[in-house]
């Protein structure tokens, strides 16, 4: 059942991508609404897919790379949809849904972990800790995509090669605001997630593992994004430089999410 739901949500994301891509070249109100509707449908089906898995592993499905990436994709979809509604801007949808499709298609190549999570990694506190951190990563991924579009748009504007998509992209100012909104969401989720993680760890062991590479790199990510928010309003960094910084920050996030989780950390490994 879960397999079918995953495949169906992928199909809806794919259909949503086609609609978003179509409206980039030829705007159509109903097609835009259909794109958003299909994305929402994909998110809903993926939720049931995750729910199915969470019943099996007795917690939020983050205990292996497959589950974690699946949760990430779902939160990325939700964050984007929220931002789309908030900023009333659909032209980024094609990029986001393409990312979702590729991401979920890659999930198919990963083995599905069937083992339930060990008892310490269960409970609401731990579940919120991981979910919020994954949400933060998803929001940073969104800001990454928005920053890349900003840089592309800026480049087109300077080179004066203004193809069809140029006129459909959001304005630089809108992209900047959307990226910042996304980073705010990410930072909020990350701070709350880290705080819950610290409380959980204290309850479990009575101390804090500040030396764990995952903790160190998470704090580095926190600092990097706070720096981005500050610099993006300064005279010398405002604009393309800040967008580049935001995009580069996400490289650190990716490093933390994959390499650190898989090889370096002691407490944050997938089970």
């Amino acid at each position, binding site marked *: 059942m879960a397999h079918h739901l995953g495949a169906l949500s992928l199909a809806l994301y794919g259909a949503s991508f086609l609609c978003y891509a179509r409206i980039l070249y030829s705007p159509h109100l109903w097609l835009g609404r259909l794109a958003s509707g299909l994305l929402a449908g994909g998110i809903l089906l993926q939720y049931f897919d995750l729910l199915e898995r969470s019943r099996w592993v007795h917690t939020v499905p983050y205990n292996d790379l497959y589950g974690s990436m699946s949760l990430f994709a779902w939160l990325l979809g939700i964050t984007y949809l929220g931002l789309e509604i908030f900023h009333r801007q659909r032209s980024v949808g094609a990029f986001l849904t393409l990312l979702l499709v590729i991401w979920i298609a890659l999930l198919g190549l990963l083995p599905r972990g069937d083992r339930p999570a060990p008892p310490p990694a269960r409970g609401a506190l731990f579940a919120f800790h991981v979910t919020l951190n994954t949400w933060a990563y998803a929001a940073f991924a969104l800001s990454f995509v928005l920053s890349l579009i900003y840089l592309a748009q800026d480049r087109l504007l300077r080179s004066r090669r203004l193809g069809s998509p140029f006129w459909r992209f959001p304005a630089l100012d809108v992209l900047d605001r959307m990226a910042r909104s996304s980073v705010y969401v990410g930072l909020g989720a990350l701070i709350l997630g880290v705080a819950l993680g610290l409380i959980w760890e204290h309850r479990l062991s009575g101390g804090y593992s500040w030396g764990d590479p995952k903790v160190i790199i998470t704090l580095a990510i926190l600092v990097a994004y706070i720096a981005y928010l500050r610099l993006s309003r300064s*005279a010398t960094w405002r604009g393309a430089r800040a967008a580049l910084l935001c995009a580069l920050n996400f490289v650190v996030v990716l490093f933390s999410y994959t390499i650190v989780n898989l090889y370096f950390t002691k407490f944050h490994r997938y089970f």
Partner: protein
Amino acid sequence: MKSQTKSAGQGAVRIHVALIGCNHRTAPVELRERAVFTPEQALCAADELRERGILEEAVVLSTCNRSELYGVPGEANPSAAEEMEDFFTSFHKIPRAEMHGSLYRSIGADAVRHLFRVAAGLDSMMLGEAEILGQLRGAYSQALDHGSTGPVLNRIFQGALEVGKRVRAETEVGSRPMSVALAGVKLAERVFGNLKGHSALIVGAGAVAEQVIEHLRNRGIGSLRVVNRSYEHAAVLARKMGGEAVKWESLEEVLGMPDILVASVGGTGAVLTRRMLDRAIAARHGRPVFVVDLGVPRNVADDAAGLYNLYLYNIDDLGEVVEQNKKARESEIPRAEALIAEHLAKFETWRAALEAASIVDDLREHFHKHRELVIREKLSEIKDVSPEERVRIAHITEELIERVLENPTQKLQHGRGLRGRLAGIEALRHLFGLDEEKD
């Protein structure tokens, strides 16, 4: 369905639409300006055309680039197009010979297609321009309020307005700026998004700058300042456009304020140097500034283009953008034509349905007429037919007619393929001589 269809009991409904007019392609401006209809004249012309029996419905569309009469001729007026042409020339007191070759005329689907193309902006001087749709809506609303339209023109003009809207929403035909002034403003929107609350500074008071100001004003620009060497000129322009005039000596002071800078100082060369603009951006705390240089020679130093967060477009850059946009619009023509064809097919379906319903009635009438003739003729030769038998014969022949008509009725009203249905209607008219019978 009174006018264009049929006068009670007189033959089949035949929906005719006729068009006559001239536009920027067929007539020079000297001729077009003599053929313009003011709104009052448009109503007067429509009334006269109907009163004289040339048309039963009429709408006049008159803009600076076209003067067109759309109408639905009466059933008994096969030479309506000719009469419309006579009316057009005599109304404007233009000798017919002078208009020779400048007037075009279309009938039926071609006339409807022409109107749809006009609404889509495909027949405009500037491909895809938006104004024509408003002008068309105005002309139609005026005629509708005046009562000079009817079911056919209502259907066609409402269809045209829908086509116009769809073409602009679903294709790129009308989406990209086609003038240097609008291109500058649209590009600024690519940087700032909505221009409400943003500010602009106009340096110089050239004609194109004035157009830029108008576009900025239309987009609700927050504040507008005008600087010119002649303060009086700046004050006049500022007053006209609802801005604030600034003295030339204060140029550097106000340079750091605007988000959009439009330079249009004639014959002076670089008025804004890299150093000045660098300072201006610093004063803006690095916020981007969009600069439109309309001057020839250029008003902004070439090396200023490299400044961070400064987007500089000179007149040639904007010209290039307009050229790119023109090509992009042209490449969208087939998609716009496809939408037009879709709406034309809708109209034709409506027309075919009306005509089909009417031709079946006419056929029935035709058969009944012949049936009565035959019964009267044949029964007069037979002596011993009782009244009951006569009634019975009448019933049987009536049933026969209904049975004969059943299949064509189904085929004409619900058959597949518009072409086939229209061809069927034409064939029935021809084979049974329905039009001749009516005449």
